């Protein structure tokens, strides 16, 4: 599974994307798995209310299942326009 990060999430984790081997059932499970891995992930995911997630380039939510998903993106609320 491809996991991509943007804005301060990318900076905090220290990389723009990575391939993750995971059996996580939901986005929340994936976050728990990554957070347990290293402090920088725990720091980035500390407050999920400050985060947004997209699954295969569509905005989704943290309870969404990861079954069949190829790309998960984590980022702060958008500030375009």
């Amino acid at each position, binding site marked *: 599974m491809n996991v991509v990060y*943007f*804005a301060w999430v990318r900076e905090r984790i220290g990389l723009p994307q990575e391939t993750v081997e995971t059996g996580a059932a939901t986005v929340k499970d994936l976050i728990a798995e990554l957070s347990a891995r290293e402090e920088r992930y725990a720091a980035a995911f500390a407050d999920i209310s400050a985060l947004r997630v*997209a699954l295969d*380039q569509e905005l989704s939510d943290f309870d969404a299942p990861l079954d069949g998903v190829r790309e998960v*993106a984590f980022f*702060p609320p*958008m*500030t375009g*326009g």
Partner: protein
Amino acid sequence: MTVRVQAEPFDAGAELNAFAQGRTDIGAVVSFTGVVRDTQGDLQEMLIEHYPGMTTRAIATIADEAVARWALADVLVIHRYGPLKPGEPIMMVATASAHRAAAFEAADFLMDYLKSRAPFWKKEVTAQGASWVDAKDADEDALRRW
């Protein structure tokens, strides 16, 4: 409908003139141009990051929604990414319709949704350092108008 996501500058006036040109069935064109604002007088640069795989599609989905809700003859969205200077246009939206209410409402709607639902992030660079622009509660609240 035209959606463009690009690093290059664009000419808002030329885009406005090219938009819906030669159409005699429209009575109203509304444009919005977003400009890099230097709030404190110390902004060196605005960096705009985006999610390339998602951006164009997310904008097209928002534009489709506008076309479904209002009688629009045409829609234009241009959004830049990369480094921008104070005073430079960041993005523009244009809507064309037979009547002014539809053109105004659709442009307003597009801006509210682009602001909070298209994957762009702004970072301000000043002499004191760089910081990500926080999303405003007011921007999220604005979506409830529609």
